């Protein structure tokens, strides 16, 4: 017999030219959009998070750019810790430039209407500040009136808090000021600053008469300059340069101020970016999970299509088109939702932002969101959809036919791109490849950890299987490792969801706990500072008169560093290599040091020792330095420092490094000298006490301000409540945005449990057919998903503690803090939700007659 062989000629059409696949995508899709709900929900929540964060950031940047000059009120500002040098003022003064000055300091004011007092930021102004933007006051002429003499203006919130009216007066130092009005808006000052330190404005000429500026008073002087051009600003900045090193002046122009504000919000933005990244990754998992379910449901239909002549790619394209189109729609909806959220954020905490955010749409964020969503829907659906290409047509004859695994280039390309995606997405979100890489490594480690735990669990369950337990218990347990089980995939997906949600919670609670003062009952809550030496004893007596404890009375000496490790500070600043390592501010700042021979309760020595000074024996001076600052100055035990103490050089060696809990029982210090070295140096004193009774506190403050006008008092309770209020609002926004990640996580969880539905459905139907009662099937289901939920929660949360610690320590650089109650709530929620969704999916099997379900299955 002659064997003949004819080669077939088949024209494979590309997706855009194959009309049939588009037709089929529409015909099939219109009945299946409900089935793709999980897919669209994952995309919407994931993209909404990303767009909301990006849009907020872009809007903020735009506003900063738009109002740049108003942020400063001038073209440049020079700051100094002491009055400006006359020679400098002459040098910078030209005929064309305009100048204004202010001096600000912390001071007590007494409101004469109620005789209550509080610490404020006293700002004394001179000249026509601001040169850009307006001072908005009520009444409108208040600013002009203030400049005429003994008139003061208050921040609006302060006036409201102390019920101050235009008829009232306030006492600042030794002088009474009449009220000129209230300040609604002041260039350069944000509401955030006003909340933490509300301001009182007077004229600079009136400051001297208050008697507040004494030895040791910490006054910041600012010189505002309006230049004639950008070139002139550069010339002025050059003029200032020599004075930076010589007199410690600092200068900001508009660009620098913008940059500083941007950096200030950098940490918040990074956290928000992380939230967006988490929402995005969860969205990706949701997409992959829901498309996996969808592709599985479509297996039989694909087999029929393959039978009647569809190629693998044609079958793939039908569902790919559906996912692609829905992906664009879902991304667009996500972008719309994100924009809506972005409009809500400023309402919640807009007044704490450095600029007033206008209602606006960031089209860049929208475009990024839609593009990102489309990429995600394509990338993360390809892997599950590739399986469609390899559905064997034989499945139409044998439903349980399982083909061998086929090598697919598309599958491998998708796997590689999927691994790259989190790195690129995180790098884009956090604007750093390193951070992006670290996030992704963390994610891969988490996935690996979850997979290992899942394998270990299955091994343990098999090895120690409770043979003598009840049928229900044994059956539920054996479901975990029987053929076609979904245990590993469920543990990994649900565990990952729990991991991400818990990690987010740990970071959030660590950030929010940063500012909480968790003192014990005896800890100081009221600090009196700027006490002159001659006032010290009488102030202490006053404290005792009101039956208040005197927790601390410590001397403070102001000084600067002139040498570090034998090298003059000037040389550090001039050597590029070194200046990179030691920041300029650490070398030039004014240090407020104290002396004592013991540790304070907030301190412990972590390296070296305390070394007291033996007077008269020509002993060396040994100081201790706080942890953290030794890294900044790059010094260690045994290194030498030379302090310039009001013109007198004092050489000292570092004898130890102290760990300081800064919020605990203030004041705390960077450098502590031993007794006997600085005792005779010019010094001021700080006293700390604890006030419990509010009425007592008011009377004590009144008498203090009345008799010692220069002494200021910080009420930590007031600061704590203000900070708490601020963080409550910021926390609300954080939780609101985290909610999106959590919702996406829940969508993923639902998808993961739905995934296992197919495996369980048939078994439960058979059990029911052979006589299992509703209660038994329900218990089997609950126990099985209960196991999965418990182990997922334990694994996810265990890993999240590790990840949270790493992130808080190395990324956010804040103290690690875990709220165990919240973690417990997350665990219970994950378990309950897993069980609930598992049970919900089995209801169909439980509530319908076996025959009906069997027919449906066949």
């Amino acid at each position, binding site marked *: 017999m002659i064997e*003949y*062989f*004819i080669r*077939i000629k*088949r024209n*494979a*059409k590309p997706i855009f030219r194959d*009309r*049939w696949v588009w*037709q*089929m995508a529409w*015909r*099939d899709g*219109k*009945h*299946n959009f409900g089935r793709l709900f999980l897919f669209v929900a994952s995309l919407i929540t994931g993209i909404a998070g990303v767009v909301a964060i990006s849009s907020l950031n872009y809007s903020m940047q735009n506003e900063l750019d738009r109002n740049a000059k108003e942020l400063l009120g001038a073209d440049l500002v020079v700051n100094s810790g002491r009055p400006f040098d006359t020679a400098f003022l002459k040098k910078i003064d030209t005929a064309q430039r305009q100048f204004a000055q202010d001096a600000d300091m912390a001071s007590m004011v007494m409101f004469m209407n109620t005789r209550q007092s509080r610490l404020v930021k006293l700002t004394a102004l001179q000249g026509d500040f601001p040169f850009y933007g307006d001072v908005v006051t009520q009444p409108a002429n208040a600013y002009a009136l203030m400049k005429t003499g003994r008139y003061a203006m208050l921040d609006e919130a302060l006036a409201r808090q102390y019920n101050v009216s235009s008829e009232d007066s306030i006492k600042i130092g030794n002088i009474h000021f009449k009220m000129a009005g209230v300040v609604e808006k002041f260039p350069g000052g944000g509401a955030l600053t006003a909340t933490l330190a509300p301001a009182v404005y007077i004229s600079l000429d009136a400051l001297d008469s208050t008697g507040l500026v004494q030895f040791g008073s910490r006054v910041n002087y600012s010189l505002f300059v309006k230049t004639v051009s950008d070139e002139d600003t550069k010339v002025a900045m050059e003029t200032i340069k020599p004075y930076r090193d010589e007199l410690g002046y600092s200068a900001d122009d508009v660009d620098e101020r913008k940059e500083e504000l941007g950096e200030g919000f950098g940490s918040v933005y990074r956290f928000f970016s992380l939230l967006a990244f988490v929402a995005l990754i969860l969205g990706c998992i949701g997409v992959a999970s829901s498309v996996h379910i969808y592709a599985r449901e479509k297996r*039989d*239909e694909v*087999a*029929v*299509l*393959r*039978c*009647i*002549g*569809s*190629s*693998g*790619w*044609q079958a793939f394209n039908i569902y790919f088109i559906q996912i692609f189109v829905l992906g664009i729609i879902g991304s667009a909806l996500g972008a719309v939702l994100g924009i809506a959220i972005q409009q809500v954020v400023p309402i919640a905490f807009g007044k704490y932002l450095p600029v007033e955010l206008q209602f606006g749409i960031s089209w860049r964020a929208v475009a990024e969101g839609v593009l990102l969503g489309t990429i995600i829907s394509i990338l993360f659906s390809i892997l599950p959809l590739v399986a469609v290409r390899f559905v*064997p*047509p*034989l499945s*139409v*004859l*044998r439903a349980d036919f399982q083909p061998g695994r086929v090598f697919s280039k598309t599958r491998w390309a998708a796997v590689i791109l999927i691994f790259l995606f989190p790195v690129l997405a995180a790098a884009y979100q956090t604007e750093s490849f390193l951070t992006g890489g670290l996030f992704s490594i963390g994610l891969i480690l988490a996935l690996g950890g979850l997979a290992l735990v899942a394998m270990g669990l299955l091994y343990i369950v098999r090895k120690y299987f409770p043979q003598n337990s009840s049928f229900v218990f044994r059956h539920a347990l054996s479901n975990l490792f029987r053929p076609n089980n979904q245990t590993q995939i469920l543990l990994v997906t649900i565990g990952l969801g729990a991991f991400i949600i818990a990690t987010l919670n740990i970071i959030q609670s660590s950030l929010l706990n940063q500012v909480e003062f968790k003192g014990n009952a005896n800890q100081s809550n009221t600090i009196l500072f700027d006490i002159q030496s001659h006032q010290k004893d009488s102030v202490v007596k006053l404290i005792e008169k009101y039956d208040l404890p005197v927790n601390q009375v410590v001397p403070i000496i102001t000084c600067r560093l002139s040498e570090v490790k034998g090298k003059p500070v000037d040389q550090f600043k001039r050597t590029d290599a070194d200046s990179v390592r030691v920041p300029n501010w650490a070398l030039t700042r004014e240090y407020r040091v104290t002396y004592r021979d013991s540790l304070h309760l907030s301190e412990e020595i972590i390296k070296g020792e305390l070394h007291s000074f033996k007077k008269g024996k020509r002993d060396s001076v040994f100081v201790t330095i706080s942890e953290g600052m030794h890294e900044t100055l790059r010094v260690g035990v045994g290194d030498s420092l030379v302090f310039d103490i009001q013109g007198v050089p004092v050489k000292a060696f570092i004898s130890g490094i102290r760990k300081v809990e800064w919020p605990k029982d203030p004041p705390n210090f960077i450098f502590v000298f031993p007794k006997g070295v600085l005792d005779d140096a010019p010094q001021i004193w700080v006293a700390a006490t604890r006030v419990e009774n509010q009425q007592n506190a008011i009377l004590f403050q009144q008498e203090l301000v009345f008799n010692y006008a220069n002494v200021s008092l910080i009420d930590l309770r007031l600061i704590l409540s203000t900070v708490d209020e601020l963080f409550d609002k910021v926390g609300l926004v954080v939780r609101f945005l985290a909610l999106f990640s959590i919702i996406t996580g829940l969508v993923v969880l639902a998808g993961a449990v739905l995934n296992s539905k197919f495996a369980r459905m048939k078994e439960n139907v058979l059990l029911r057919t052979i006589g299992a009662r509703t209660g038994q099937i329900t218990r089997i289901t609950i126990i099985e998903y209960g196991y999965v939920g418990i182990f997922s929660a334990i694994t996810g949360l265990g890993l999240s503690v590790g990840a949270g610690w790493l992130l808080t320590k190395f990324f956010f650089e804040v103290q690690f803090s875990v709220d165990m109650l919240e973690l417990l709530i997350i665990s219970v929620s994950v378990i309950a939700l897993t069980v609930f969704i598992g049970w919900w999916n089995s209801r169909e099997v439980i509530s319908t007659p076996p025959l009906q379900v069997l027919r449906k299955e*066949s």
Partner: protein
Amino acid sequence: MPEIVLQANALTKVYKSAERNLVVLDNVSFDVQQGTSIAIIGPSGSGKTTLLGLCAGLDVASSGHVSLMGFKLDKMNEDDRAYLRNQYIGFVFQNFQLLPTLTALENVMVPLELRGERNVASKAKDLLVRVGLAERFSHYPTQLSGGEQQRVAMARAFITSPRVLFADEPTGNLDDENAKQVTELLFEMNRQENTTLILVTHNLELAEKTQRILQMKGGKLVNERILAVL
């Protein structure tokens, strides 16, 4: 002499698993002439459905060859075999295998649309009218009875005027009345279209309506009866 449309030569199918190799089809050979009808019968597990799958190019043999319309199926990849099925083969299955999200009319149109043909609705409607479903064009499979679903499946199978029609227990899921109607329709259309019919069934009565019966047992072809000469 009529053309040979299908030639099976020493077909063997082995399913390999970790524990053992299961031989479900063992060295089966036969050929089929154009326009004839043939029934493959045998008890459950005898390998008849596997044989049908191999002959229709739904799977490939472990050894041996299938030649369909001169094309050697084992030399072709899956997509080429799919193309071949679309060009020359029709299917009728026991559980109908209609696409649940498509209407009856759309189900019938699909094979021609796959070829890239346009305006195929009128041909599909004609066929549906022919199988007695003139009132069911826009019904979905779930809205049709078993007999109606099988008639839609037959219309879908015949719309491409296939050279070979494979039917796997076409009356297996139907009551007697519907089974009778479907059987009559199947043979009538087969005659009119001059299609080669290869039928797998347990039903001897149905098998005896064909011209030739192949009997399978334990994966082997054990008997062949010629009932009528073409």
